[in-house]
Each structure stands twice: as C-alpha cells, then as structure tokens.
C-alpha cells in the first residue's frame, strides 16, 4: 500500500519513511534541474555571481514554496507556450546524480523535505537527508505521460529564459507516484545495489 503524503511535509512524517516505501505525493512542488541548481548555488550560497535581473524576486517567490517542500528533477514537455495556458504533456524525472555537487546545500538553504528524481544520489545528499531531515523519492524514469497525468495544474514558471526543460515550473500534483530510495536514517537503496552488484561483477571478471 502506498503512503499518501501532502506537501509541505513534516519532519515526523519524513522520519517515518523508510527505503522501499511507495508513496503518492500531493500538493505544490517546483521543478528544478541543472541550470536552476547551479543558479541557486552560485547566486545565493557561494555568491560567486551577484544577483541580476529578477534573481532576488524569484528567490523570494520560491523560498516559501521550497520551505518544507519538494523539488523535482524534471525537464517537462509543456503545451501552451504561445498562450501562457501551460499544461504538462510529458514530465518524467531526469537523472539526479548531476545535482550531487549542489543538492545538499540547496536542501539546507531552503529546508527541503524531499527531492524527486531518478537514479539516486550520492553521499553528500544522503548526509543532508539525515540532517535536514529529508528523503529522496525515485520516480519511474521514462514514464513521462503517465506522470504528467498527476499534474493537475501549472501554477506558474520562473526563469523561463533557462529554456523550457531547465525553467522552474510551479506545479500542483495529485498522487504523484514514487518510491523512497534514500531515507532520513542514512539508508540508500542505490548504495546497497551498487555494493551487491560490485561483488558479482568481481566474480564475473575473476
């Protein structure tokens, strides 16, 4: 049975989740991937570039959405770009490991409770999951049209100049399906599979 989660998610709820749990997420979340993570880290954490254009305005707008919230590694196919009546057509997860250099800092900065993506993440993110606390939710890669059906509404978009896949889309989802593969207790399914498969690989290459 899948566990129903409503965003924002409380610390107690996050701590109750374990690797292997199936969940259905509902509420408002934000998409963000390579360009968004780099922009957040460079502008607001490492501060290697000064805020420009609408940077501060966007930061203030996304802060309350991400506090206790969830970021989704996703570059969607979006209809209605000409009219502004946006609709998600296809919206599966992208590979999360590319955000490994940024993710832990971003989680701490915003008090993120969840990261959705695919392929899992590394040690730094796992440590942040324990500290913040937070969980990594694995969506099914490639199941893009099915997942798009759980997106009830597109509420807005920030940084569209990053391009459609890289922009930060504010979406309202209902029963978005995912599996917990990294929990707030230091467990990672990805680390486990990596180690077990490595032992078998060594046998096959012996």
């Amino acid at each position, binding site marked *: 049975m899948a566990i129903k989660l409503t965003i924002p998610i409380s610390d107690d709820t996050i701590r109750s989740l374990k690797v292997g749990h199936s969940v259905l997420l509902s509420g408002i979340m934000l998409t963000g991937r390579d360009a968004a993570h780099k922009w957040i880290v460079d502008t607001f954490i490492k501060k290697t570039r000064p805020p420009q254009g609408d940077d501060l305005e966007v930061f203030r707008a996304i802060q309350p959405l991400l506090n206790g919230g969830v970021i989704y590694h996703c570059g969607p*196919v979006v209809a209605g770009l000409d009219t502004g009546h946006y609709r998600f057509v296809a919206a599966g997860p992208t590979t999360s490991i590319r955000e490994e250099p940024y993710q832990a800092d971003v989680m701490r900065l915003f008090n993120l409770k969840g990261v959705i993506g695919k392929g899992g993440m590394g040690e730094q993110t796992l440590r942040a999951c324990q500290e913040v606390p937070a969980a990594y939710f694995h969506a099914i890669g490639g199941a*893009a049209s099915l997942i798009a059906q759980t997106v009830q509404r597109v509420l807005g978009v920030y940084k569209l100049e990053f391009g459609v896949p890289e922009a930060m889309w504010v979406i309202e989802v209902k029963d978005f399906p995912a599996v917990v593969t990294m929990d707030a207790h230091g467990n990672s*399914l990805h680390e486990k*599979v990596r180690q077990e498969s490595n032992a078998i690989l060594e046998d096959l290459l012996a």
Partner: protein
Amino acid sequence: MRDLTEEILELIRFTSTNLPEDVEKALREAYAREEPGSAAHGALETILANVEMTRRNSTPICQDTGTPIFFVRYPEGWSPRRLREQIKEAVALATQKNYLRPNAVDSLSGKNTGNNLGDQHFPVIHFEECDGEELTIELMLKGGGCENVGRQYSLPDNALKAGRDLEGVRRAALDAVWQAQGEGCAPGFLGISIGGDRGTSYIASKEALLRKVDDPNPNPDLAGLEERITREANQLGIGPMGFGGKATVLGTKITATHRLPASFFVTVSYMCWAYRRRKMTVRGEQVTYE
C-alpha cells in the same frame, strides 16, 4: 524532388510516441520474470502502462525526446541538401506540436533555441547514397540520461584486465553496465562497437542499435558474445531503475569496424528502455512506416 516534410513529421511523431513492438515485447517478458510486489515489478508495470498510454494519446513516451539522430539512405537523384532542409523543418514542426521537447542548447551561452535546431550537428543527420529505388530514413531518439552513461574503452585496459580480444570486450561491456547502475533508465540495451577511431566507433555503436532486439548477429562469435553479455549483465542484479531485480539489460548488439594497428576501442552506447527507433521507406508515391 518530392517534398517529404509532412512524412518526416509523421516519422518523428511515430518514433516519439509509439514504442517499437520488439522493444515492448522484451519489456513484457522482463515484467513476467520479476517478483510480483517487488519495486522492479512495479517499475515495469508503470513503464508498460505508460507505453500503452502514449500510443493511445500520441504523447511522448519520455519527456527527454533526446538527440534526434537520422540515418538517411537515398538513391541517386535525391538531394541531401534539400532532404536536410526538410528534416529540419519537420523537427521544428514536431517541436511546435510537442512531439519533441526543445533540446538544442548553445553550449557557451546556455540558450535553448526553442525549436531543436542548433548548428550543423543538431539534429544529427547521416547521409548515404545507395543502390536501388527506395529512400529510407531511420530515426533514433536518444535521451541524455542514457547517452551520459555511454563509455569508450581503449584496450588494453590494465585495471579491467581487458586485452585486445573478445574477452576484453566482455570485460569492458560489463564494467560499463555496472558503472551505469540505474542511471541510464534500466533495463537498457547495449550497442557496442569494436574498433574504428573514437568518433566512428561511437557512431557505429549507435548504428548497431538500429537492429531489432531478436535479430541474431551473422557472426557466430559475436552472436555468442551478445548473448553472454546480456546474460551476465542481468546477473549483476541492478534491475529496472536500479531498484535491484532480474532485468538490467534486455539486448546487446555488437559490430566490428577496422582500426589502426595502434588503437583498439570498445565503445558502449547504452540505450534506455524507451528505445525509440522507427523507419520510413519511400517507394515511388508510397510511404510506409515500421
């Protein structure tokens, strides 16, 4: 020369939204092998439901509609220059119609062109003049997740104990599958090229993926190696999405090309489960798709 823009647009729609039958069959067989109730079983169930939905609704199977890679074989008399223009027009139209996500990003400015038309290398178009009367265009849509986990080995590789022989190829291939874990959207398919230079080896490894899943290699040694790599890759237990499970690789295709005496490349192109490749054939007035 005939204008094929509309027909190429249909090829793109068909490729992006309708998973080939042989690939779906392999996924269904994999689903039947996984333990009911496992995360692997659940992942494949979701994947198959998505495949049916996108075929019915004509929406992209995956939001990453990838690099459009065209392989065009044209008889004498056709103009590759004009075919290129028609392909580009069809790609821009397909993007407008949401069959493709805008994916062409300027590497220096980071700016997305918005229509999938970049420089002369995006979309990718390979032309070859051929005998006979038929023009064929094969299209592969290869997403970034699986492209990122592709690897090239220069043998001998001391760390892998991989020498310049088929055993070395096996070792490189299994290493590539292990390195990929679930990141390339397993269960995947492997296109492997032995030889060439670095560039041609990557192209040949993708061409190998144009073969059907159940198409046996005419070279018995390579046929045996394809079967063995698939079987051993599945023993790794990485499973669908890297959740752990029986289905990690659903097919391996190997090709060999000539090389320099000094070089021995083994190139592994990893294709995600959303293995989108379709073909159109033009015979006179008739256009067919498969």
